């Protein structure tokens, strides 16, 4: 009757109360780090149609976002954007899941999902408008079928659940997907989202990237059981996959989406991966992280295993390599050129779109400020120059 007791955790800074070996052994996997294709009766049917070319396309996606990620860090160092949250190490989790989606599915993500943004067809420089501090949202959510990046941890899981309730009301067969981190699972909102999703049986997929860290906090501080274990208690089926295995992630997401589309309700996927970089460019992981952990995970690289697999298949040809290199170079050059060229917003944009209908109070403030600005010869002059990252917090 009583469930097994779990080990005590207080001051421990281990990244999980599970050992690494236990954790790894618990994951659904199709591609070993060596590139070996592991048969998986449950997942195999869901990616059966993928030929080497299709897997090569996934590889190319991952290569591109890895490169865009590096460009993000570089652009931040060069002062072209204010902040960058690297996704290094999480390429398979993001591409595998996002490439399972249809265009009419709708994504509510957190701030680290540049790979998902890419897969939704948004121009990377559109995203960089956000990190450059030009706008809070770089794209039209209805064009990309993706909401703006969410900064409030966990809030978007409820939005996905509500959107999915709307899909259900409409009798549509689309799904909503919520992306969030391991740290987010501690937030009330994420748990309430599971309650609502289970109660209404909404077509929503909860996609948790457990990258082992929430800034400086190891996942073991948030949960002393595998995160995937939580959802079933809410009545939501869950799956724990190797988040560095793009095939397994793709297959698991397809299963969840299929369940959503066919009236099966919500699903929860825990993609176990690792944040290879700092939390953001403002963070210094040396303060809290054992470098040995990084080394361990470097051996589980999400791209390397696909490369090895394709090589085994004879599909990682010089020509393919060349094609990937060209595509990544082009993407990098493009994002760099476009980011640097992003113009500053007009001052009066401050007052735009706060309300959809005219608002007497704000209209007054706007006209007062316009009159104030008209005193200055250069309308960009007022205000002390903005000092990005002046105080250097790990935001």
């Amino acid at each position, binding site marked *: 009757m009583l469930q097994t007791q779990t080990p005590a955790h207080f001051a421990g800074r281990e990244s999980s109360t599970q050992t690494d070996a236990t954790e790894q052994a618990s994951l659904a996997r199709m591609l070993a780090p060596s590139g070996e294709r592991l048969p998986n009766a449950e997942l195999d049917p869901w990616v059966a149609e993928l030929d080497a070319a299709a897997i090569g396309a996934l590889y190319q996606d991952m290569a591109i976002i890895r490169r865009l990620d590096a460009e993000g860090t570089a652009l931040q160092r060069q002062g072209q954007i204010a902040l960058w949250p690297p996704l290094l190490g999480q390429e398979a989790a993001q591409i595998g899941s996002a490439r399972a989606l249809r265009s009419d599915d709708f994504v509510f993500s957190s701030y680290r999902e540049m790979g998902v943004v890419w897969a939704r067809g948004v121009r990377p420089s559109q995203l960089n408008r956000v990190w450059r501090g030009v706008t809070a949202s770089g794209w039209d*959510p209805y064009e990309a079928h993706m909401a703006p990046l969410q900064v409030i941890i966990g*809030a978007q*899981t409820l939005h996905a*659940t509500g959107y999915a309730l709307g899909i259900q009301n409409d009798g549509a067969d689309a799904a909503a997907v919520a992306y969030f981190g391991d740290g987010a699972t501690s937030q009330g*909102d994420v748990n309430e989202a599971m309650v*609502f999703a289970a109660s209404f049986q909404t077509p929503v997929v909860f996609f948790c990237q457990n990258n082992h860290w929430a800034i400086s906090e190891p996942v073991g501080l948030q949960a002393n059981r595998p995160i995937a274990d939580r959802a079933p208690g809410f009545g939501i089926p869950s799956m724990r996959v190797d988040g560095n295995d793009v095939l397994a992630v793709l297959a698991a997401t397809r299963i969840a989406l299929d369940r959503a589309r066919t009236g099966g309700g919500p699903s929860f996927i825990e993609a176990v991966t690792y944040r290879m970089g700092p939390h953001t460019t403002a963070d210094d992981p040396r303060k809290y992280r054992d470098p040995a952990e990084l080394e361990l995970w470097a051996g589980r690289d999400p791209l390397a295993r696909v490369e090895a697999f394709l090589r085994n298949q004879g599909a990682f040809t010089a020509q393919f390599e060349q094609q990937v290199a060209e595509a990544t170079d082009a993407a990098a050059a493009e994002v760099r050129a476009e980011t640097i060229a992003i113009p500053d917003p007009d001052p009066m944009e401050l007052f735009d779109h706060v*309300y959809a209908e005219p608002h007497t*109070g704000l209209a007054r403030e706007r006209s007062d400020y316009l009159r104030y600005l008209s005193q200055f010869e250069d309308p960009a002059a007022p205000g002390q120059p903005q000092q990005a990252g002046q105080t250097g917090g790990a935001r």
Partner: protein
Amino acid sequence: MTVMTLAGAINAGLRAALAADPKTLLMGEDIGALGGVYRVTDGLQAEFGPRRVVDTPLAESGILGTAVGLGYRGYRPVVEIQFDGFIYPAFDQIVSQVSRTHARTRGAVTLPITIRVPFGGGIGSAEHHSESPEAYFAHTPGLRVISPSTPQDAFTMIQQAIACPDPVLFFEPKRRYHVKGEVDVERPLADAAPMGGAHVVVAGSDVTLLAYGPLVATATDAATAARAEGISIEVIDLRSLAPLDLDTLAASVQKTGRLVVTHEAPGFGGLGAEIVASLTERCFDYLEHAPVRVTGFGVPYPPAKLERHYLPDLDRILDGVDRALGRLGAAAAPTVPARGAEVAQ
């Protein structure tokens, strides 16, 4: 014209909104079979079904968060918060999501969410059932905040709130739910006064008295009582708390030169402070006396046996009017020097 209670008028307004637009839906705790603890949604689930009138799990953040998602999907959610004191668990979703999504998406996503909140005291209820949290929301950019005081306004304004593309906090004066009045249910919404405008309820010339929600009736009573003493009070029902209809309010203060504002919420940092500050800015040269606030105190809403001491009532409002007229109200002596008094520095 139909005679309705204020609660009944909201019910009728909700029914009309549900009938008008299939994308409108109601969400909340106990709003279905029960019809809400105040029966404001009575009969609506039976009429429109459980997908249009949705009993939700017991979690306010969850309700508002899912309403945001429904808004993204093109729905028009009308959320009931069961009591004023239970809105705080949803504060983050309201302040960080509901209010900002239109600005965040540069206008691409509108969230026409209406948040209905029965508010205020005077009903002898338990802790957390008598709050007046409107100032928190009035201070939050991206929200509109309104409150009706009559059945007619309740009927009209709830429909205007729902039709409004912006998120609207709709504060229902719960102790006036059973007040009856005539409601014109036939008049097209387009012909009604806009929801952002204040109404002069009683015209007067000596003092401007501003109130909203539950205290409009008390203010009107005060005007009646004062008239017997030869004081002419102009009572204005704000109706819209954010934005304020400053043109209407300032016109009155410029006429009377004296201002009293009353609300149930604590005075410090309450809506009265904004009203006094902005009308002082606009009408400084017309003011004969410092504006006066008659409000709840800076204490948690008290137990039922003490609430009549907390709530502004006829006597306290008249005391405030006296002070605004420079007739030293008993409470005012030490803090507001009489006009022209010499005060040592």
